[in-house]
């Protein structure tokens, strides 16, 4: 009894939070799941029933394997548990198979692998020394941070309703960040290399890792003014880092190199044939660009400046992944987006090199990399915003300025995920969970920083409050108007343009704060 008491009472708020959210995830099992559910079932089947030489060639289903090899091995491992649930789901030809046991297995596989995420959050809480505030538990930065991460709205709906495995992948990333904070650089680099071979979207933040490890790990000392001391370079460290990355890559890609399949693997991983924007526009720069194009073309048609016969009929929001021609503004090529992304990332990288501020500086750079590539990347999914939101949570409990950026970024980013769930039974869930997370995050951070200046200015307050009427219009008013048939894309367009404004604002604000932050000698203290 005493042991039970010790296990459940006292300082066990963390396990209560983690268990609580796990139970909530279990309750979400019967909710709607998207085609990603079938995608992962198909991968289970491919990896289970075919030899490794076929993995990246198999194309019975349209949802071909397009994640790096470690993820394929992960599915392979899962499939060996899956066969005890339902053998049928492991058949490649069993398209769209979803028995109740399949559903249970797949949902539980996400919930169980989330343990890694929980562990990572636990580690992150240890290394974040946020603002020292009141003695009360609910006002401690660690408590707030673990709620913000564990109960993250985006992860809940993307992983446990929509269906994906972002939980444990984000867990890997947070864990590697935590290791860097704890000065266990090799471990951090190893984890990140592994993560890259699970999901290559994390390539976006690789520059931050590379530069940080090179600057702050391979160079062992700084001059007193913080600038680089060239003679402190340690070759041993560089080589060991390189070795780690090389070994992990060899383990992952080696078999395919041996089979002479690398080009095929890469063509699957980087499908540049897809369009600039995803079926639903992610709220980034290109959404604003395309919206501007649309507005200009409508104005042009009204003023008879454009020839209607020359305008391509394909609408960008028709729901298919396809190539798209802009009508007025120049069309965007993959190369252009790549250049834009690089240009957007560069300043933050420079900052990390010339103005190193320890792991916190690295974290800011990482977030900027993630956000910049979200802003300017090719075929960005709206879910990719989680890549910036989760690490940003770590910063939010540290400084009032970061907290304000975090709140704008998360609230708009999360709201932009709403179109993922479009079925009626899930409508209350997404609204309730969103309100729960937003109200909690805003109020708790406000309490944490109550002695400093208010987190939002009037424009930001107005903007965030505007999300409410927008939701009411898109989901409750619009379906009953006559525009529904004529302009079915209006809610999606409004949502992504409105959110794009907020995310651009957060990105800009974060950039300004990183660039203008004085290079305080915080690193010296450490």
């Amino acid at each position, binding site marked *: *009894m*005493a042991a*039970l*008491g010790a296990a*459940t*009472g*006292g300082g*066990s*708020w963390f396990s*209560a939070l983690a*268990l*609580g959210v796990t*139970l*909530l995830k*279990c*309750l*979400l*099992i*019967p*909710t709607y799941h998207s085609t990603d559910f079938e995608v992962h079932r198909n991968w289970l089947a491919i990896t289970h029933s075919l030899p490794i030489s076929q993995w990246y060639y198999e194309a019975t289903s349209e949802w071909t394997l397009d994640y790096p090899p470690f993820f394929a091995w992960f599915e392979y491992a899962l499939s060996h548990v899956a066969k005890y649930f339902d053998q049928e789901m492991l058949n490649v030809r069993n398209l769209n198979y979803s028995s109740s046991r399949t559903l249970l297995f797949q949902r539980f596989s996400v919930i169980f692998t989330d343990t890694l995420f929980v562990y990572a959050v636990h580690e992150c809480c240890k290394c974040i020394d946020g603002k020292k505030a009141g003695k*009360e*538990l*609910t006002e401690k930065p660690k408590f707030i941070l673990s709620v913000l991460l564990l109960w993250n709205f985006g992860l809940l709906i993307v992983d446990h309703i929509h269906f994906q495995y972002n939980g444990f992948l984000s867990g890997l990333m947070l864990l590697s960040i935590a290791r860097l904070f704890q000065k266990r650089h090799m471990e951090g680099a190893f984890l990140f290399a592994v993560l890259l071979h699970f999901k290559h979207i994390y390539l976006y933040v690789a520059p931050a890792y590379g530069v940080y490890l090179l600057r702050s790990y391979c160079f062992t000392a700084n001059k007193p003014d913080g600038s680089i001391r060239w003679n402190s370079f340690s070759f041993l460290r560089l080589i060991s880092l390189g070795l780690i990355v090389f070994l992990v890559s060899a383990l992952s890609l080696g078999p395919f190199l041996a089979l002479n399949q690398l080009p095929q693997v890469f063509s699957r991983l980087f499908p540049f044939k897809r369009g600039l924007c995803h079926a639903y526009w992610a709220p980034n720069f290109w959404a604003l660009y395309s919206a501007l194009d649309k507005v200009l073309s409508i104005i042009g048609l009204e003023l008879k400046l454009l020839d209607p016969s020359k305008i391509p009929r394909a609408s960008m929001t028709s729901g298919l992944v396809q190539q798209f021609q802009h009508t007025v503004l120049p069309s965007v090529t993959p190369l252009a987006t790549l250049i834009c992304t690089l240009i957007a990332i560069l300043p933050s990288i420079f900052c990390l090199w010339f103005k190193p501020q320890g792991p916190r500086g690295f974290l800011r750079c990482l977030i900027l990399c993630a956000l910049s590539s979200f802003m300017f990347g090719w075929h960005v999914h709206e879910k990719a915003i989680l890549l910036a939101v989760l690490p940003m949570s770590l910063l939010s409990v540290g400084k009032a300025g970061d907290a304000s950026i975090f709140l704008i970024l998360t609230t708009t980013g999360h709201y932009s995920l709403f179109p993922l769930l479009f079925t*009626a*039974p899930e409508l*209350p*869930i997404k609204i*309730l*969970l969103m*309100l*729960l997370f937003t*109200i*909690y995050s805003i*109020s*708790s951070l406000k*309490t944490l920083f109550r002695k400093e200046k208010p987190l939002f200015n009037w424009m930001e307050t107005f903007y965030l409050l505007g999300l409410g009427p927008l939701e009411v219009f898109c989901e409750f008013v619009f379906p009953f108007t006559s525009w529904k048939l004529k302009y079915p894309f209006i809610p999606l367009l409004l949502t992504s343009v409105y959110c794009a404004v907020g995310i651009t604002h957060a990105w800009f604000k974060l950039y300004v704060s990183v660039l203008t932050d004085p290079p305080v000698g915080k690193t010296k203290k450490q």
Partner: protein
Amino acid sequence: MEKCYLMTAVVLLGLTVRWTVSLNSYSGAGKPPMFGDYEAQRHWQEITINLPIKQWYFNGSDNNLQYWGLDYPPLTAYHSLLCAYVAKFINPDWIALHTSRGYESQAHKLFMRATVLIADLLIYIPAVVLYCCCLKEISTKKKIANALCILLYPGLILIDYGHFQYNSVSLGFALWGVLGVSYDWDLLGSLAFCLAINYKQMELYHSLPFFCFLLGKCFKKGLKGKGLVLLIKLACTVVASFILCWLPFLTEREQTLQVLRRLFPVDRGLFEDKVANIWCTFSVFLKIRDILPHHIQIMISFCFTFLSLLPACIKLTLHPSPKGFKFTLVSCALSFFLFSFQVHEKSILLVSLPVCLVLREIPFMSTWFLLVSTFSMLPLLLKDELLMPSVVTVMAFFIACATSFSIFEKTSEEDLQLKSFSISVRKYFPCFTFLPRIIQHLFLISVITMVLLTLMIVTLDPPQKLPDLFSVLVCFVSCLNFLFFLVYFNIIIMWDSKNGRNQKKIN
């Protein structure tokens, strides 16, 4: 209140859990010809909107009482009518006379679930929040934790949002009543409680403590002065609210009698299905339902109920206090559940509500009771295919209680409110110091039995000769637990004011 946002978060969490549970199956889904409670509620909408009010409770060519005839008081019928108007606006097929029987669709399920959520949000949840905010002598954090635990109570969530009923309406009104009379808004409180009775006649389980508490208050103020005035006012409120609710049925004598006959179906037998009360458990050994004549069954159950609740009620009338009132609500409802006539397994919710209210005073025992109460409905929940949400919500509730009250550290005599009882026993048996340890062991045994039984039901098939073996076992185990709780709560009530007097003496 500065921690308003945490309370909002708790309410939102409660709502989220409710809605996710409602995505699961409901009673009688896809099971013609009778379906289940879901169809009953839909059928009542059909009846109330299509037939004139005079025919609602009568058998007729358009109203077959054998098929889910209306057997709840008028307020339920009005609520059904209200829902029916909304349903008619959305899709008239849902409530078309005759043709809509057994209507099932995703959209309709969504509509029905939404009606439950809205009723809950309007009546029960505000009452819980207000109740927790009004608690005295505890920190804001504890108030919020208390609200979290009450809102996560799995029994009510599973029956309302899984099985499908509107218990939160009647229980919510009853809670408003408790709030009213506890904070000296006696007239409003009794009005709210009358509404509760007129929504669901089972609320009569709570009526005696209300009556005794208010009567005791009147006595306290002196029956010749203010007390009499209060008594008259109360009587007027009660009569007026009843008349208001029953107005359409009071025009003819036959109407009133017919409604009453529908509300109290005495010829239905001592108990139905498997319910964790004395009679059902006892009939495992001796089939009283078949041996004894009908009127003797009624007599016996009446006597037992009356005798078991008499001491607590007398005590409350003589020493009315809000705390004693809550405990008497528990023990009276429990007596009714265990001994009275024609009890359903869902009636345990009427006991659970007041137990939720004493969560703060006796966290350990309340949590235990609330777990047992949910377990006692297990056969019903399994029939509705609600295993998964049941297990999950029970675990969530347990974690919430364990962390917010640290219940395992609160097992001393004082925390169990058994101090004065043990002192008086120790006068005769000086070595009587092992009570807390016994209770801890009983808790462990009880929880282990419940877990084992659940596992058995889920994994094993019952032997062919005894198809009901497991549900009978569930009833038997729960009934033993409930009997123990009845004794426990009565002990607390009987020794409570003594404790108070002792303290006064010390002061």
